[in-house]
């Protein structure tokens, strides 16, 4: 039996081969192409959803979430009442009613700040993922958040910058973020510019170092102050006010103008450094600028809201699933979608366990982690692409 099998093997293999040779030699010069690509005709058009439509839907979503973000709370208001107050405020004479004060003084600045921070973190996340070509990258990869923590903790526990009053934490965290950013930049810089792997490793290592500095400060600090540090570390828009808005909004606007101008070169960089260079991109300069722009956006966002995780990681992936990876589509969509996501997160943070307020970092992680896992498990997935 066994011997028969052994002998049958090569014989069977040989038979089709012998037949195949004359077949292939017959129609010489006209080899059959691979199936599926031989037709010279164009297939039916299957374009992506037009960007204007996507943006219109996302803008509508943002308006709705912001309206509900302002309307819902311990004193519920109707959307009509909300828009009445907003219209009055924009016209320059805010109402002096209870509803007017709640909307104009408390909830509207908070919702706007959440929107700006959500947009900034999403944009920074989208760009960092291209900068280091890694799907796990988020804006805090570059050391911004851990540096900001050191600064904010120093303010809260040691009373640094006490003369600056309410701005002390913001100033402390911005300085911390800038210092961390500079450290990561200098350490990961090599002869050939900012290489992705070095950037990731240096970011992770230095972040761990800064986090231990924060831990040390907490360890040395007094217990009451420690709680406020913990709350700050998890992020909140509870202290939002109008005068906190201009700086993050301006940072976002400047960054967006720069990044939209770089839409094409970002796509080229997504191909890798060498293909980008062959497409005429000054890769070294582009990477340096992207590093600065994203770090500044993330740093300013952290300064006004604390560390809100997951938004900069998850939302860019959701956006790419909707519009693909062309950054001329990803960036504007991300601004609107990220803003809506954060407004919704903040709404949940202050209503789920009302009258108490949940740190928003908890909410974004609770929404973000399952969402990303569902997306990843639905199909083999990478950066919005399927294999």
């Amino acid at each position, binding site marked *: 039996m066994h011997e028969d099998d052994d002998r049958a093997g090569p014989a069977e293999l040989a038979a089709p081969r012998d037949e195949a040779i004359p077949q292939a030699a017959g129609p010489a010069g006209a080899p059959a192409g691979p199936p599926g690509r031989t037709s010279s005709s164009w297939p039916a058009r299957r374009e992506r959803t037009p960007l204007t439509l996507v943006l219109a839907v996302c803008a509508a979503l943002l308006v709705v979430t912001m309206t509900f973000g302002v309307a819902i709370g311990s004193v519920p208001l109707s959307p009509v009442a909300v828009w009445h107050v907003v219209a009055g405020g924009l016209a320059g004479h805010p109402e002096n009613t209870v509803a007017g004060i709640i909307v104009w003084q408390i909830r509207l600045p908070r919702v706007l700040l959440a929107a700006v921070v959500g947009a900034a973190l999403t944009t920074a996340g989208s760009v960092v993922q291209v900068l280091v070509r890694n799907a796990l990258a988020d804006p805090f990869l570059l050391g911004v958040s851990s540096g900001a923590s050191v600064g904010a903790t120093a303010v809260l526990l040691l009373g640094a910058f006490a003369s600056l009053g309410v701005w002390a934490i913001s100033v402390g965290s911005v300085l911390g973020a800038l210092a961390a950013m500079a450290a990561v930049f200098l350490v990961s810089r090599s002869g050939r510019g900012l290489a992705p792997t070095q950037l990731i490793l240096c970011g992770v290592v230095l972040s761990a170092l800064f986090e231990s500095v924060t831990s040390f400060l907490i360890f040395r600090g007094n217990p009451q102050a420690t709680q406020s540090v913990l709350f700050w570390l998890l992020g909140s828009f509870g202290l939002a006010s109008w005068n906190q808005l201009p700086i993050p909004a301006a940072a976002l606007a400047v960054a967006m103008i720069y990044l939209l*101008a770089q839409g094409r070169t970002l796509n080229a960089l*997504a191909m890798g450094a*060498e293909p980008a260079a062959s*497409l005429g991109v000054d890769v070294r300069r582009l990477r340096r600028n992207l590093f600065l722009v994203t770090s500044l956006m993330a740093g300013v966002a952290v300064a006004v809201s604390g560390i809100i995780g997951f938004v900069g990681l998850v939302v860019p992936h959701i956006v790419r699933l909707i519009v693909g*990876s*062309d950054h001329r589509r990803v960036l504007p969509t991300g601004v609107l979608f990220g803003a809506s996501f954060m407004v919704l997160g903040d709404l949940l943070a202050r209503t789920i366990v009302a009258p108490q307020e949940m740190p928003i970092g908890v909410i974004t992680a609770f929404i973000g982690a399952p969402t990303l896992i569902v997306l990843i498990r639905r199909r083999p997935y990478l950066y919005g692409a399927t*294999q």
Partner: protein
Amino acid sequence: MSLRLDHLAVDIAGRRIVTGIDLTVGDHEFAGLVGPNGSGKSTILKTIYRVHPPSAGRVLLDGTDLLSLRPKEAARRIAVVTQESTSEFDFTVREMVMIGRTPHKGSFERDTVTDRGIVDQAIERVGCQQLAYRRFNTLSGGEKQLVLIARALAQEADHLVLDEPTNHLDIHHQVEILEVVAGLGVTVLAALHDLSLAALFCRDIYVLCAGQLVTGGPPGLVLTPEIIRQAYGADVLVIEHPDTGTPHLIPRRVQPTTRVHPTGDAPARSAAQPDTPA
């Protein structure tokens, strides 16, 4: 539309990788760069597409020093198909080819009808119309390579540099890719691994060994057993390709071996093998 390397030398991290490279690819010619692994083929190509600066010598495009051009200007003259064929990002084939328009566009400039026409034409020239709306990541290796060639075409450069474009491809795609490239009518310099395939398509072949050119010229003069032994340390038989007369290399085993029948049986008869070309 000529590409000339003039006494080119390249250092990487303080180490000289290639030195004294002189070669010229004439107008509309297809030249091959061959040599063992690590001989400096990629380094030379990367210098041409400006990843590495030359340490000495020059890269000349129609007599103009490449380094005197701005990055975008250079990218409008030289397009590249690199070994990379994966993109982790979700681009469709048309979006991918549109990226080839990058050096032609300003910061906020949008894709025009002209750009779309150029992209569609590039896709047609490599015969990938049926793939136009597919995701790049879902394509096979050969299809990806064709799309990357289309991207290089959309760049509208008159020089094309290819770094081992047929790596990891089956024999059908190897021939198809090179056939497409040869039919483009641009000046081509390609690093190639398969010497017989290179001989089939290249007008001139330059052989590189340990960072220096061993020789260069028409395949028939360059691909001899002596030069292959000198450059690769490999023992080969060279026969004539029955169609083209170009050299075809047959590797030989290092260990002495006996003849084996094509079906794998023990050698019974040594005369009149059925597979000798008629």
